[in-house]
C-alpha cells in the first residue's frame, strides 16, 4: 500500500482561500453549479461554498483495516448491457457487452477537453501508473454505508499525464449507461480520488462498475461514477443535461 504524505503548503492554502473568495463573488457565472432559481439548489450551493470555505483542504477520509471490510450492496445500474436497467443506453450498452466479452482488453478510457494531450488509456495503461489501495467507507444517499478496499490510480496522476491546463476547473465523467457526473478540481486532485480497477483484492466486478469506476471518498456514493467511458475536463461548469444529477433533481455537490 502506498501512503501519501499530504502537504498543505502555504501556497495551496492561499490559492484555496482566493478561489473560495472568488466563488463567493462569482454570482451567476459558469464557475458554479446553477441554481435554476430553485431554492433547493440555492441551499445546495450554500453548503458547497461553505464546505469549500470552512473545511481544511485535502483532509483524508478515514481509511480502515482489512478486517473492517463489510458486505456491500450493488445498486443503481448494475450492468450497462442489460436493457431492463433504468439508465440503459442501447448503443453504449451493446459496446459494453462486446468489451466485456473480450475481458475489457479493447476498453479505452478517453480523456478530453482542457488537456494538452487528449488521448485514450487502456486498462494496462492505467495499471502502469503507481497504484493506490484504500479501504474506505462508501456512503449512499439512501442512508446505508459499506466498507470496501479499492485499488486504482490517482485521478491527479492521469490528469497530469494528459497535461491538464491551468484554466481547468471541473472534471466530468461519462459512463456506459445513461449517466454522467462531475466534480470540481478540489475533489479531482484529492489524493484519495482514484480511478479504481480493483475491489477487495480482485478485479472490479461488473455490478460495481467494471472495468473502471471513479472513487470520490469525500462525497456520497453516487458521485463515484461506475462503468467509466470518457473523462472531459472543462473550464466552465457543465450540468451534463439529462445525464447529470442536476436535471434529474439531485444535488451536484454531496459532501454532506
Amino acid at each position: 500500500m502506498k501512503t501519501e504524505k499530504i502537504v498543505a503548503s502555504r501556497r495551496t492554502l492561499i490559492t484555496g482561500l482566493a478561489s473560495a473568495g472568488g466563488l463567493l463573488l462569482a454570482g451567476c457565472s459558469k464557475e458554479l453549479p446553477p441554481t435554476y432559481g430553485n431554492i433547493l439548489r440555492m441551499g445546495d450551493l450554500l453548503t458547497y461554498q461553505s464546505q469549500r470555505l470552512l473545511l481544511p483542504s485535502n483532509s483524508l477520509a478515514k481509511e480502515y483495516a482489512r478486517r473492517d471490510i463489510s458486505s456491500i450492496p450493488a445498486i443503481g445500474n448494475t450492468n450497462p448491457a442489460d436493457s431492463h436497467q433504468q439508465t440503459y443506453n442501447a448503443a453504449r450498452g451493446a459496446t459494453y457487452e462486446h468489451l466485456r466479452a473480450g475481458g475489457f482488453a479493447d476498453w479505452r478510457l478517453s480523456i478530453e477537453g482542457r488537456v494538452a494531450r487528449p488521448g485514450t488509456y487502456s486498462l494496462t495503461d492505467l495499471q502502469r501508473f503507481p497504484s493506490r489501495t484504500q479501504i474506505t467507507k462508501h456512503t449512499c444517499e439512501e442512508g446505508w454505508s459499506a466498507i470496501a478496499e479499492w485499488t486504482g490510480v490517482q485521478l491527479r496522476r492521469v490528469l497530469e499525464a494528459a497535461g491538464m491546463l491551468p484554466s481547468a476547473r471541473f472534471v466530468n465523467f461519462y459512463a456506459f449507461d445513461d449517466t454522467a457526473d462531475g466534480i470540481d478540481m478540489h475533489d479531482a486532485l484529492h489524493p484519495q480520488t482514484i480511478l479504481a480497477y480493483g475491489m477487495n483484492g480482485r478485479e472490479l466486478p461488473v455490478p460495481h462498475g467494471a472495468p473502471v469506476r471513479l472513487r470520490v471518498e469525500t462525497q456520497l456514493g453516487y458521485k463515484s461514477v461506475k462503468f467509466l467511458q470518457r473523462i472531459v475536463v472543462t473550464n466552465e461548469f457543465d450540468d451534463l443535461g439529462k445525464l447529470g444529477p442536476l436535471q434529474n433533481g439531485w444535488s451536484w455537490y454531496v459532501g454532506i
Partner: protein
Amino acid sequence: MPPGQTQQIPSRPRHARWVRISHWIIATGVVTLAVTGFVILMAHPRLYWGAAGNDLMPALLELPISRNHHHGGWERSIPFSTAAGSAVSAVRTYDILNENSWGRSLHFLAAWFLVVTGIVYVAAGICSGHIRRHLLPRAGEFTPRLLWQDLVGHLRLDNPLATGGRPSTGAAPYGLIQKSTYLGVVFLALPMMIITGMAMSPAITAAFPFLAGMFGGSQSARTVHFFVFAVLVLFVLVHVLMVILSGFKRQIRAMTLGN
C-alpha cells in the same frame, strides 16, 4: 388569591420581538427537518451501530415505515473470498421508494435556517439576559419539593395563569419543568442533532474524524440522530398541547404580535 387579582399577572413579560421572530423561524425549520428527515429515513428504514450498515448486514432496528422495510429482492450473494464469514455483495433487483433528491436538499436548507437562527438566538439570549432571567432555574428553585409540585401541577393539567403563576418563580412566567425542557431543547437536543448530522457527512468527517468517532461511527451517529429526533417530536407535541391547554389564541398572539 381573591377573585379579580388574576389581573395582576401582567408582571408576565412580553416576548421580545427577536424571540418571536427566531421562535417561528426555528419552529418552521424543525417541522421541515422532521418531515424531510422522515422522508429520508423512509428510503432506508434500518438503523445500525458502528461505521457501516446496509441491507446485507444485520440491523439494530428495522422501522416498518415504508415498503423498503421489506428490503425486497436481491440476486444471489457472492462472497469476495473463500474464507468463512467473507464479506459478500449482491445486486438489488427491486425499485426502492426514494424521495431523497428533494428530501435531502430541503433537509439541509432547513438546517441552514435553523443553525443560523439558533446561533443568533443563543447569542442574543445570552447578551440580553433572556436565558439567565427566564430560562435558567433560580437559586433555591431546584428542590425536590418544588419539582414535585410542578410535576403534579402538570399532571393535573393546572393552568398556571389561572392559579396566578407558579409560586416559586416570582415574575418569571415559566415553571421549573418548562425551563428545564426549553434549556434541554436549546442546549442539548438541537446541538446533538447538528453534531450527529455532521457526523454523517463524508466531507466533514474527513476533516474532523472525531465527529463520527465519538459515536462509534457514522451509522451510530445516524441512529442517535433518529432517537433525538423522536425526543424532539415528543417535545413539540407536548409543547403544542400545553399551548392549547393554556389558551391557544392568547399564546399564539403572544408569540406572534407580542401581546
